[in-house]
């Protein structure tokens, strides 16, 4: 019973789940689009954008 109550308090809410989903998709999408635009002339810039995404996606292990 106590575990169920704690679960209720700690578990994801629909609003929070939606916000996390939007952030998880929007942040890499914006960064990679910017990197792709900059990378047309110098492909190495794409790697810099990818680096941001790699750092961001470490949240998978949070």
């Amino acid at each position, binding site marked *: 019973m106590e575990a169920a109550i704690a679960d209720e*308090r*700690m*578990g*994801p*809410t629909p*609003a*929070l*789940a939606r*916000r*996390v*989903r939007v*952030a*998880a*998709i929007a*942040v*890499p999408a914006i*960064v*990679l689009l910017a*990197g*792709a635009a900059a*990378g047309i002339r*110098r*492909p*190495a810039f*794409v*790697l*810099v*954008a*990818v*680096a*941001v*995404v*790699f*750092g*961001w*996606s*470490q*949240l*998978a*292990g*949070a």
Partner: protein
Amino acid sequence: MVTYTLAGALTSVLLGAGLGLVGALALPDDMAVPAGVLGLAVAAVAMAREIGVVAVPLPQLGRQTQGMWAKSYGFTAAALLWGLDLGLVFTTWLTLSGAWVLALAAFLVGKPLFGAALFGASWLGRALSVWVGPLLMERATDTPRLLATLYERRRLFRSAHVVGLACTMLVFGSWILSGTTM
């Protein structure tokens, strides 16, 4: 948050610059094609790992940063130490393989400034979560709830990582075709 971000940026930039410097000293100038082939191969293995096709263990120390620093030194000093520690990337747990691909890229390009930019950007992405997290929460006490949600949505972050790996493969491919790494 500022202390943590700046401290991590410092060690990340130094790490990237160091990798670039080692590459500059160790590699000959005309390495773009073999570097592209090696990068492509490593990125392909990393991608296969993240998709779940192969089970490759990540080379890592497998340690956590010290949570007790906050009790021992106070929050500001702990934030500084956590930033310095996590900014070193390879001294703590790695969940995903991209950091190794970045390290290889920084080494193969062999330019300290580029390596610094690469790992500085990686830290920026990692520290971004500390800044964005509070904006996602409804209440200040929602941190455990946010962590539970992140865990539930971890596949989304892994998918973003896979897209990033696909982009690195394109860049390594461009090295082979163009004969230059920049």
